[in-house]
């Protein structure tokens, strides 16, 4: 008993940290309708600023607290509301998730750019002194200030928030605003202000959580906060994103159980090395399977959505004939010029970069297919690419298969994993599905990819050009470029054909209304499995291409953060069209390469840029590429019209 307590009590602060974050997540979700993946990042920002002010600039603790928590916390929330979430239609689940992800990707990359040093040490405590022992439980289970602060904070926050949401009018209005801001306005309530308040409260909570939990960690690092988020997401899922008390209890339990297990399990066992770190994801997957509430997330649609005009059709479908002809010819010319340049004058370094861009484009096409055409959100596309790459790599190393055979098997493996993923989440959709795929990605990251037998350990798998069977593909020839170009063209054509064909129509019906689609006889489960398999295969093709190009593959190239970033990048660029994916792929590597020349401090800028892209995206869910295309097409059409109305006889006769 004594021993159990001894293991359990140190788990309390971790558990409370999870609980506080989980409660914050549930609050934000219920009060704003957004599953705020950026909550951890917000907390990190406040903790960072707080510590930075106190330690580096000798501010008084209270002053730093006011600035970091009372001003910065709600301020960030308000900024998010004003510039991102306010502009997203409440029915657009994908946009809400992706924008939340862009915060998760963007903020931690942004902070070091603003403040320099990324790792601060010695966060001050504002409640009990963390190292003073205040009470003893039993004979020798000391309870120090850290535990006390964490427990008190958790309980206080929980009670306050439950009261706010369930008993006050403001809480009622917040819950109503999530469902329909417009219907709430018809009641005479300023819904914008209600939502802004909800974001401010959520931001305050994030700031408070961040600052109060900072002393539990020795250093303040973004990855710690993200790990914290994962456990918090699991706890929130246990509560079906509804009940804050359950979320809190689940959070505490996850913290305590993992420390108790750590205490009892033999350190050499597989349980200790592989299962324990994966505990939060296992809890998350289990919750997604068994908690019924998670199947009905975001089901309440805005009753007034019929007030919105329909989204504009793709520009390629509605532009005038002349412009269409010019654009199509233009594309072929650009493609030809690109191919010739790559084969002739482009420096080797840039050829490598662009090759990589094409490999990314293929991976991105898998997102176009899955999210753009089928409306399903997967946060495990990089993982699927990794599955194919590692399978192909291992087959090459051990079975001596060349890239064609090994790659094909790898692609099959990725498709199979994707299919399994789809089968295991048939009853989930929207956010639930996104969480399931996220859990899968995390499982692969912690338990499978790092294994010696999969990725060859931390060093990664080195792929000598000889195993390719085609020494031609060695990095210093043009063969790789030709291969990549062909594969990319084939994949792009395939996705386009699926989009235009019967399956594309079925998927678009499914995206429009699942009830309606099932009602005319569309086999929804099969469509889902099929599109996941296809998308997994595409990601696998891209992963294999990338592996050949990189010659060394390590787990870091396929981790879940990349999956998130991929989704954000593709969706903000334009997920509805094939061009969007290709432009995102090329754009990503080009920007990254250009940033090599920028000062060290701006290294994280790529992700920040794409997160900034979210600003445009939130107002134009069709994506930036599509938006710009529309703008330019409109300009061209106007110019054309002006040209026509001119009484220049030469052009007039020439046209008619």
């Amino acid at each position, binding site marked *: 008993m004594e021993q159990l307590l001894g293991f359990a009590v140190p788990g309390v602060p971790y558990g409370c940290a999870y609980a506080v974050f989980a409660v914050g997540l549930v609050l934000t979700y219920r009060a704003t309708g957004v599953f705020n993946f950026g909550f951890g990042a917000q907390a990190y920002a406040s903790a960072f600023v707080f510590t930075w002010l106190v330690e580096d600039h000798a501010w008084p603790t209270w002053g730093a607290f006011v600035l970091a928590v009372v001003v910065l916390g709600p301020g960030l929330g308000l900024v998010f509301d004003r510039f991102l979430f306010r502009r997203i239609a409440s029915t657009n689940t994908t946009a809400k998730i992706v924008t939340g992800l862009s915060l998760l990707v963007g903020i931690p990359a942004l902070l070091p750019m603003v403040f320099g040093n990324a790792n601060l040490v010695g966060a001050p405590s504002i409640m009990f002194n963390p190292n003073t022992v205040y009470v003893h439980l039993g004979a020798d289970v000391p309870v120090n200030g850290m535990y006390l602060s964490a427990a008190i904070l958790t309980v206080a926050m929980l009670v306050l928030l439950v009261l706010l949401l369930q008993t006050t*009018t403001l809480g*009622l*209005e917040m*819950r*109503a605003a*999530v*469902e*329909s801001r*417009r*219907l*709430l*306005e*018809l*009641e*005479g*309530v*300023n*819904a*914008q202000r209600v939502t802004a308040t909800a974001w401010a409260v959520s931001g305050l909570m994030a700031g408070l959580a961040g600052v109060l939990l900072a002393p539990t960690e020795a250093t303040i690092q973004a990855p710690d906060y993200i790990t914290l988020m994962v456990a918090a997401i699991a706890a929130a899922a246990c509560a079906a994103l509804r009940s804050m008390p359950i979320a809190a209890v689940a959070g505490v339990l996850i913290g305590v159980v993992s420390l108790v297990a750590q205490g009892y399990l033999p350190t050499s066992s597989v349980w200790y090395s592989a299962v324990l770190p994966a505990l939060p994801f296992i809890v998350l997957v289990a919750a997604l399977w068994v908690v019924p509430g998670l199947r009905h997330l975001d089901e*309440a649609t805005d*009753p*007034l959505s*019929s*007030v*919105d*005009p*329909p989204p*504009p*059709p793709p520009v*390629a*479908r*509605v532009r005038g*004939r002349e412009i*269409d002809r010019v654009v199509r010819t233009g594309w072929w010319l650009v493609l030809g010029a690109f191919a010739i340049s790559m084969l002739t004058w482009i420096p080797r370094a840039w050829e490598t970069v662009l090759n990589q861009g094409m490999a990314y484009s293929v991976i991105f096409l898998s997102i176009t297919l899955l999210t753009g055409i089928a409306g399903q959100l997967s946060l495990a596309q990089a993982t699927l690419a990794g599955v194919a790459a590692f399978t192909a790599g291992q087959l090459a190393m051990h079975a001596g298969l060349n890239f064609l055979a090994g790659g094909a098997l790898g692609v099959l493996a990725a498709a199979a994993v994707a299919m399994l993923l789809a089968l295991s989440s048939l009853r989930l959709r929207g956010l639930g599905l996104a969480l399931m795929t996220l859990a899968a990605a995390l499982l692969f990251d912690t338990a499978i990819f790092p294994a010696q037998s999969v990725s060859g350990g931390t060093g990664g798998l080195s792929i000598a050009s000889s195993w390719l069977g085609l020494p031609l593909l060695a990095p210093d020839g043009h063969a790789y470029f030709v291969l990549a170009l062909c594969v990319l063209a084939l994949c792009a054509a395939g996705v386009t054909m699926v989009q*235009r*064909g019967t399956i594309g*129509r079925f998927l678009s019906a499914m995206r429009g209304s699942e009830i309606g689609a099932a009602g005319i006889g569309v086999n929804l489960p099969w469509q889902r499995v099929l599109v996941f398999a296809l998308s997994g295969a595409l990601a696998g093709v891209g992963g294999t291409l990338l592996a050949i190009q990189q010659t060394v593959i390590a787990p870091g190239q396929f981790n879940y953060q990349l999956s998130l970033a991929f989704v954000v990048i593709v969706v903000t660029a334009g997920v509805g069209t094939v061009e969007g994916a290709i432009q995102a792929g090329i754009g990503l590597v080009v920007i990254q390469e250009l940033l090599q020349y920028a000062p060290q401090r701006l290294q994280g800028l790529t992700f920040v840029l794409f997160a900034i892209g979210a600003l445009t995206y939130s107002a134009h869910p069709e994506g930036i590429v599509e938006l710009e295309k529309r703008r330019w097409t409109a300009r061209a059409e106007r110019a054309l019209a002006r040209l026509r109305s001119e009484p220049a006889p030469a052009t007039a006769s020439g046209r008619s």
Partner: protein
Amino acid sequence: MTPPVLELDAVSAAYGPYRALFGVSVTVLEGATVALLGSNGAGKSTVARVASGLVPVTAGRVLAGGVDVTGKPAWRIARAGIAHVPEGRGVFSTLSVEENLVLSLRRRAGPRALRHSLEQAYLRFPALAERRHARAGTLSGGQQRLLSLAKVLVVPRKLLIADELSLGLAPHVVDDVYRALGDVQRAGTALLIVEQSIDRVLSIATSAVVLDHGSVAYAGPATEAADVVAHVLAPRGRPQGADGAMPAEPRVPRGRGWRRSQTT
């Protein structure tokens, strides 16, 4: 003379590229009951939405009680005493029946009278009393409709706009609703009603506006409206959207994919 409760002055409105109203003028005098008629897609709902600020106007003015509210957010117009029951579902499905009522009665009635007006709502519509703690999303379609009407029928306002008033309601509930309408009418509330059962609404209306393809085809006393309606609607009587639903500049998708063989 008091200014009209609501005046649409040559209002045009559009949903993005889809134009819906072309210079529509509608006036609702204090205490009057106006029936808004027209075939499918004529623009009745759009008029209602423009009046309550849900859809912005592209030309013309909207006046509420003589005050220009063009371009004002919907909540300001609602606070000016104009209630709008949208067509279809008009309730928060994630909130309970009682929470739905509270949300809407609280501001009107004030905290003290809240209990009282809640009781009144339940008294008038007993079907809701049985389900007061149920989530509104689990009510049947007609019960949801009833709830959205109960929200506005208990406390009189300046103007009540009801879109597809009796949609989905069983006959005897329609009677209840019309009885309640009579009460708020007597209490001085002006009514602007869109209703599928034309005779019924004309029997309580003082004047009528008939819309056709987004323009006013008739505006005048209710007694003569029935003829006009038969005249305007009967020959077509078909959903149309020719001018109404077509984009301002025709942007009909060109032949591609599934549309390619259309011409063959």
